[in-house]
């Protein structure tokens, strides 16, 4: 795999005060690859996901997107972030904007599209995630699953090269998890490059090209889902899997 790398992390280190949250992380995500990051809470998987578009800064190491190193704060960083969509655990839809405005805002302000053009694309995407009829509503009027699907449409509207998912289903009721996972499955089939932090092992098995297992700020395993789930190498992963797959 990884013939044509899109996201490259080299020897990335990050600290929260004395806590060494990311330790010598090396990870390459190829174009069209779906990489699922799993691990116990506090293992640094969300932080890792957030460093890729520099919502978290790093102390040392390099992160490259499509061959370009991540710039420091400023216009160049904003430009690069527009190429990487992000979906958050808590959706983070703009509370003062309607669903349609949420999806259109950055298209107009960042991509410079005309309002009609942006709204047309927004409606197409809302239709794709099954929410065309919700366009005039405010986020608070939607269910969690619907909000998350709007958030995915909002990220897709920028025509990103890759999408980052930071525990996209962790704040959802069990019933709503599937509607979000289905949208993500479809994206994976369409060849979108995705980095997904999740606890959904079913999704990891069926949609991922690779599973990255993290523990205590390190990448412990980086293998195909089949190999990882049937025959984990490390004790830490065995222990983790035995706990979550018991029920």
């Amino acid at each position, binding site marked *: 795999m990884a013939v044509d790398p899109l996201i490259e992390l080299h020897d990335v280190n990050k600290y929260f005060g004395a806590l060494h949250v990311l330790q010598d992380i090396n990870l390459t995500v190829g174009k069209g690859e779906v990489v699922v990051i799993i691990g116990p809470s506090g293992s640094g998987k969300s932080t890792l996901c957030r460093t890729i578009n520099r919502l978290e800064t790093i102390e040392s190491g390099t992160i490259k997107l499509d061959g370009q190193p991540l710039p420091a704060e400023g216009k160049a960083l904003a430009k690069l972030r527009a190429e990487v969509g*992000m979906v958050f655990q808590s959706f*983070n839809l703009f509370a003062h904007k309607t669903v349609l405005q949420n999806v259109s805002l950055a298209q107009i302000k960042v991509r410079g599209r005309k309002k009609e053009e942006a709204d047309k694309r927004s409606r197409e995407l809302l239709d794709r995630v099954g929410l065309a009829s919700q366009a005039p509503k405010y986020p608070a*009027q939607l269910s969690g699953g619907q909000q998350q699907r709007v958030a995915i449409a909002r990220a897709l509207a920028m025509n990103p090269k890759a999408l980052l998912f930071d525990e996209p289903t962790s704040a959802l009721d069990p019933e709503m998890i599937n509607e979000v996972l289905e949208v993500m499955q479809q994206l994976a089939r369409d060849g979108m490059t995705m980095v997904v932090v999740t606890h959904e092992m079913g999704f990891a098995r069926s949609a991922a090209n690779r599973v990255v297992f993290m523990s205590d700020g390190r990448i412990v395993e980086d293998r195909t889902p089949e190999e990882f789930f049937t025959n984990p190498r490390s004790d830490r992963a065995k222990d983790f899997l035995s706990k979550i797959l018991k029920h």
Partner: protein
Amino acid sequence: MNVLTDNFSIFAEGFLGTVELTVYASALALALGFVMASFRVAPVSSLRVFGTVWVTVLRNTPLTLLFFAVLLGLPRFGLVLPFKVFAILALGCYTSAFICEALRSGINTVPKGQGEAARSLGMTFHQTLSMVVLPQAFRSVIPPVGSTLIALAKNSAIAGAFSVTELLGTYKTLSELGYNIVWTFFWIAVGYLIITLTISAIFNVLEKRWGVPR
């Protein structure tokens, strides 16, 4: 009772004076308060220091002292303006410190994820602040800003002591003319109520209009 009907023009003049002071000083306080609040959350540290000093000095100075400083101090440095303008400057600057803090607390009520989502879509710091954070902060600062402006309307009475025409000051003229002081103050109070209740009403409308479900 006939103190109002007999001296309507005196009351009207004072009333309009207070309205004028309130409107101009409010506009100044809102504009300055907005600028100072953006200074205080700016990524540039010198701007943050300036905003903090501005708020600390003005918020902790008694308003009467500030009036003395502006009305008697500034002319010594060659800046001579009508007393009414000085009064507006003093009131506006003083109140801007409170507006700034109300706005800043509003900015802090907007969840961090809103700004992160905006930045992750490629929006710049300025776009994030002006299109995502401030419009939401605005909704939660409507009540405290309303209170601050009501306080401003009442604080404008201090200007009367510096011979600026305003509502409270009318009692001097009227008591010299021998009118009952109780009824004079009653009608003055009614005048203030008209102004402050109008401000309340405006802010109630704003709150209804912009109060979007979260």
